[in-house]
């Protein structure tokens, strides 16, 4: 049965699927272990804190002068009193970056290119997340339905869509990196 399945799949896909799954599993396990470790220390994880801190700085730069920032064990709160946003562990975007990196490891053809793309992807996803949370703080501050519209549709579609487009453009990026780096 396994041989029948193998013969029907494009060659190399099974190898990709196994590498993709294992890479994702390893990254998520290491992250879970890190989260458990910070929980034991009764501390907030560094990634969530940094994303929250930078989002707060961005919100201040957007003109919300009385924007407050406070952190607890489960996450950080950013915004004006009564209109706060709760940045929890699931809001830091690191898991999306792990899926992006796992794909790159799955189709790994050039270690150097994979490493560069993983690093740039991780930074871009985190920067976009900081931008997203800063914008959401501003939108909730000004009120109206735009906050719900942006959180539910715009940002989600943009970031998930960007990751898929980056995967599709990987051969182009690989060629560019091989030529110029």
């Amino acid at each position, binding site marked *: 049965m396994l041989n029948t399945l193998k013969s029907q799949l*494009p060659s190399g*896909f099974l190898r990709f699927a196994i590498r993709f799954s294992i890479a994702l599993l390893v990254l998520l396990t290491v992250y879970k272990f890190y989260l458990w470790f910070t929980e034991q220390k009764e501390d907030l994880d560094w990634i969530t804190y940094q994303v929250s801190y930078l989002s707060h700085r961005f919100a201040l730069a957007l003109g919300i002068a009385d924007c407050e920032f406070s952190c607890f064990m489960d996450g950080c709160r950013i915004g004006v009193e009564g209109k706060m946003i709760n940045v929890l562990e699931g809001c830091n975007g690191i898991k999306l970056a792990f899926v992006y990196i796992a794909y790159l490891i799955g189709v790994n053809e050039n270690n150097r290119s994979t490493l560069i793309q993983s690093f740039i992807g991780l930074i871009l996803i985190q920067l976009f997340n900081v931008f997203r949370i800063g914008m959401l703080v501003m939108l909730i501050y000004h009120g109206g339905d735009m906050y719900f519209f942006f959180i539910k549709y715009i940002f989600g579609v943009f970031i998930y869509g960007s990751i898929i487009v980056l995967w599709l453009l990987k051969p182009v990026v690989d060629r560019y990196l091989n030529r110029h780096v």
Partner: protein
Amino acid sequence: MKKIAFSLVMLISLSVLAQQKKDEPIMDNWFAKKPTAPPPASPPPPPNSVPLDGGLIGLIAAGGAVGYKKYKDRKKTV
């Protein structure tokens, strides 16, 4: 008959207890209906959380689909 009546009473009282919400004060006297403790103050409403990893399974599936397409296209060109 006594056993049936007892079972019925137990069953009804259990289902009544099950319907009682956690926040509701516990009644010490069924006839007096007086709460033993004052109801706790309601906690402040939690602020809006902004999760991003809600569609993680979908993204993993999309990764698999993009990989499948990549290897299928490669098979055609070879």
